[in-house]
């Protein structure tokens, strides 16, 4: 690498390129990349546009999802009309909130242990945290189902087993996210607090925790998203319970209520608003502190 760089340097030094071409090429490269990026972004929003359009659709027959037939506002007012839709949303929220709290708590503790403490078995721990991320979901779901069935849990599959499964696959992501934040933190700030006679608990509460907070919040958001949207593992562990993704999956086999697309659009709008608000709040705070 170094050798080839050096030889290249000599070659180009001997024949310098015409100076006018370089900025022109760079201008093109700059704008080409930007243009490509924007195109990719547009591509990412195409299905969202469809989901919004279909939320205003009034299908004439049953299961009419493929084509937009006529415009109506009424779907947005009758979200709970399709049987079981709102129950599935409630269950999904309950599952995701519980799983997020548990996974964030356990995962944050693990991340602190791995970054701040030394002990035997660290690499084994890292391996066990890494493995769930390298395991396809279908394998995790099926092995959990096999375990629940063999332990005689067939009858009670539902909220508890879904939460157990979701915490399991969210944990590794929480550990990785929080760890990344902790590793980047300046340890001198905590030493300074200790030097100023803060005890360990005060240091943790007043210095360490606030500094680690962005990582913990990011981990919680990630967990919530992973959990709320999970279909594969949930399909194995839910028994007769129906979360929102399972409801959508079930509905595709029967008639397909346009209210599903209302929920999809609303989820998009709400989370978009939350993220934008959080960003604005962060900006205001950072201008204050400056």
């Amino acid at each position, binding site marked *: 690498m170094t050798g080839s760089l050096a030889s290249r340097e000599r070659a180009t030094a001997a024949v310098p390129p015409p100076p006018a071409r370089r900025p022109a090429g760079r201008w093109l490269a700059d704008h080409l*990349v930007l243009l490509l990026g924007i195109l990719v972004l547009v591509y990412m929003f195409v299905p969202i546009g469809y989901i919004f359009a279909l939320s205003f659709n009034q299908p004439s027959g049953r299961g009419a999802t493929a084509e937009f037939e006529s415009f109506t506002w009424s779907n947005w007012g009758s979200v709970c009309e399709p049987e079981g839709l709102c129950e599935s949303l409630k269950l999904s929220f309950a599952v995701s909130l519980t799983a997020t709290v548990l996974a964030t708590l356990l995962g944050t503790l*693990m991340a602190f242990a791995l970054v701040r403490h030394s002990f035997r078995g660290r690499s084994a721990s890292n391996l066990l945290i890494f493995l769930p991320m390298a395991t396809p979901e279908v394998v995790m779901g099926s092995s959990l189902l*096999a375990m629940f069935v063999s332990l005689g849990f067939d009858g009670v599959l539902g909220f508890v087993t879904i939460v157990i499964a979701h915490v399991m696959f969210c944990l590794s992501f929480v550990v990785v996210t929080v760890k990344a934040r902790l590793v980047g933190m300046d340890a001198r700030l905590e030493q300074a607090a200790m030097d100023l006679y803060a005890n360990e608990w005060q240091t943790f509460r007043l210095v360490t925790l606030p500094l680690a907070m962005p990582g913990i919040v990011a981990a919680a958001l990630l967990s919530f998203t992973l959990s709320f949207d999970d*279909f594969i593992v949930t399909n194995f562990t839910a028994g007769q319970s129906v979360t929102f993704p399972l409801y959508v999956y079930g509905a595709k086999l029967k008639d397909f209520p346009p209210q599903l697309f209302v929920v999809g659009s609303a989820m998009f709008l709400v989370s978009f608003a939350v993220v934008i608000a959080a960003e604005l709040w962060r900006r205001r705070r950072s201008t204050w502190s400056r």
Partner: protein
Amino acid sequence: MSAAPPSPAPRAAVDGETSRRRGLGWLLLVPGMLWLAVFFLFPTIQLFFTSLYDPSGSYEQGYTMTWHVMNYVDAVTDTWNLFVRSFAYAGIATVVCLALSYPLAYAIAFKAGRWKNFLLVLVIAPFFTSFLLRTLAWRTILSDQGPVTSFLQTIAVLPDDGRLLATPVAVIAGLVYNFMPFMTLPLYASLDKVDHRLIEAAGDLYSSPIAGFRRVTFPLSLPGVVSGTLLTFIPACGDYINAELLGTPKQYMVGNRIQSAFLTEHNYPLAASLSLILMAVVVVMVVLYIRRAGTEDLV
């Protein structure tokens, strides 16, 4: 393999304190580790035993343990084409995803200026709606009456009776779309860390922008490429939703087979051996890939 960077040395100097901190470390670690051991490791080990049960048993009557290794041979001879198809689809989807995500991540990291955070939100935003709804939307877009199919027919890329839905193209397109953020975000994270002065230095040394990219920017973004491709490839291998909603049984992947063996046929030994083969192949590929890419930091 290990995902951790070398640990910082423990800061406590006094022996008593060190052992106390060590105890605290265990205390913090144990609840999460127990969760993973009980609900991940134990089921996986149990899955291994399930895969060796006598296949003549049934879900209702129970299985007997006969260490029936032939389950694996049967699983492979029956479904090797599904494995090949899964890895091919996932591999192609990963490459396409990288090709699409790289310009996007690059544009956000280097060209977006103060719009950076806003653009990042835009990248994640489509994924706040349900995965299944997005895939269903693609089914509508790629359908026979849909705009993409008729456009491709008009410009004669597709024959007049040609279809997109129910072809490998649709399944791969679905995989690409659904796993985009898992590629874009790690790419962005590592591109954002690249020191701009290094790229300027390359330019000062008369490297063309392309050579500068090839020799400076791209190598520095490799950690993001590695974790992005892994985070895309692994879930894509086991996915069965895209194949089910956008394809036909002709495009089914190994995930579809595992799912039906478990949930509809209740053929647990077959499903278990398929799952373990999939997991083993993925883990081996991941380890080889990480070795080759030479990064220790995983995600």
